């Protein structure tokens, strides 16, 4: 009987205790339903996407510098390199590539996925091995590995509780954000497991990025806020 109860109730429990992170600063955003954030390569501006179908470039406090209507709704992930910004639309499974200089659309790529309409791609980042990592949100959490041409080369299931609402690559490690648990996870991408958990005092966190100085940025979708935290590696 005890074994049965243990099997029933403890299947998805995680061993580590989450470390609570205090907020350093927070800024109200005028962007409706911000759903992910990326830092520009020079670290001087941010790119934020919103559920109402717009891509914004902002200063480091979230004030809009310029924006473009991207013609899609439910944009859930953003990634920026030196030349381009990539925006992922969850429902249509599209990745749109924009020129940072011109702020215009360069190309559109479709990544087929037949899971739940609202349980699809919410996170995009690039590993130090130059592979794209594209995550589904939940039920199940898949990590698609794509080459530089956005061709799927592998697919790995992450058996972790909660959801994955954003991903970013920082200091040779993959960092994931769970909206459902309001947690940031430092992970081992090879064993697809969680190394450390950090608890956030944020409602509905949907986007994560790191500044060059190591400070961590979180955007809250429902809260319409940008939060700044110390580098979790210091904990």
């Amino acid at each position, binding site marked *: 009987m005890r074994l049965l109860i243990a099997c029933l109730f403890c299947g998805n429990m995680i061993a580590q205790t989450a470390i609570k992170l205090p907020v350093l600063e927070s800024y109200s955003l005028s962007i409706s339903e911000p759903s992910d954030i990326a830092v520009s390569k020079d670290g001087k501006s941010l790119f934020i996407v919103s559920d109402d179908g717009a891509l914004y470039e902002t200063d480091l406090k979230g004030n809009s510098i310029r924006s473009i209507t991207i013609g899609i709704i439910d944009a859930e992930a953003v990634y920026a390199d030196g030349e381009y910004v990539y925006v992922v639309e969850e429902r249509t499974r599209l990745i749109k590539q924009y020129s940072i200089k011109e702020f215009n659309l360069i190309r559109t790529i479709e990544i087929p996925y037949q899971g739940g309409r609202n*349980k699809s791609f919410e996170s995009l980042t690039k590993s130090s091995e130059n592979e794209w990592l594209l995550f589904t949100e939940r039920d199940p959490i898949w990590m698609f590995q794509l080459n530089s041409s956005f061709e799927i080369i592998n697919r790995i299931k992450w058996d972790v509780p909660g959801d994955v609402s954003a991903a970013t690559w920082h200091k040779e490690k993959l960092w994931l954000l769970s909206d459902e648990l309001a947690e940031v996870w430092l992970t081992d991408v090879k064993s697809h497991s969680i190394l450390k958990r950090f608890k956030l005092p944020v*409602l509905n966190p949907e986007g994560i990025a790191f500044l060059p100085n190591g400070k961590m940025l979180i955007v809250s979708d429902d809260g319409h806020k940008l939060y700044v935290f110390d580098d979790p590696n210091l904990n």
Partner: protein
Amino acid sequence: MGINCMFLMIQILIKMRINRFLLSLLSLISFASKAQVTIGNGENSLEISGVLSTYYNYRILENGVNEKDKNRFNLRDAQIQLEGREGKNWEYKLQIDFADITQGSSDPENPGLMDAWIQYKGLKWFDVRIGYGKIAWSRSSLTPFIYSAYWQRAEFLRGSFNSRRDIGLSISKSFWKQRASLDLGVYTGLGEISLKGDNDASGALEYTGRLTLAWPTQFRNREIDDRHVRKPMIGLGLSARYTNRELPIGAFFPAGAASEYGIKVINGEKRSIGIDVAAQWQGISAQFELIQSQNSPQDSVSSFFQGFTSQQTGGYFISGGWTGQLNYHIKPLKLIVSGRYETYNVNDLLQGENERFSSAIAYQINGFQSMIKAQLTHVITSEKINAPDWTDQFRIGWQYQF
């Protein structure tokens, strides 16, 4: 009272030997539902999903009552749901419950056709929806069944006092960073019976409105804080609806329109208001809801007045009630426990009120998508009319969303 209810639930479980059955069932379940499928072409998308649920119902009857026909298994849901989006501005939803269509059920809590509407989101000021679906009225009614630990809503919120669904046109707008929203609608006014076609002979419509406010962020229609939010959240809802129906002499409402208590649609003026509050923090959540309708029959000697004169009644009677519910989500055990008190009055001109206490416990195999739920309802007091012939009702079953 709540603890007594829990003890009674346990006693019934033992009596029915359901504990062994339940544990055996649980031991077989090692999979979780993750089967929603979406098809799309990069511009349009269509999601196919559904719900299956079955429960066993057991009643403890009043002394002298022998009809045990409600001690049975019941297929509550066999739903298919199609939700689509065309481009940026068009959405549609079709949701059918084959279990209820097969039974020919017009139960407003669990109808055969659940949603059939299209919505346009391309206007600057508001979204427009037309078709058949839930009326923006009552937080409990708007909360999807699968997100509740209960098998049944509070009696006066199940659709017998005021309709839950109807055919019509509504507009909605959210503002203040989605912390506030406003819904306005115009409907046939016959509720779920509107699907039969014609309006009643009065030709009147029903008008509805609902304003919601939330802090610090928008508050979704959910009863359970399964996310264990780290900041207290609160949501307030204010609802109102109005209809004035005047049947020609000799005309009647379509069969079933007045529903179980005969007050859902009346020949006369009906003004209703609703107030609801919901709060959640760290796994604890609570809901309060109050509904009141002022019913003014056209006929001054209507049987609703119970023989009182119009000077005594003011020409109207009141129906409605209130309910309070407290829930706790025990995350490590994947359990939800809940208690709910409700009191309602079909007609304030009749002596007495109805009081019930319900408790529920749910085990989440995979969140709300796959969940075993048990509910015990105890009747504390009843009005003289429409009194149930049972004192306690126990339900246990499994809901599965695919």
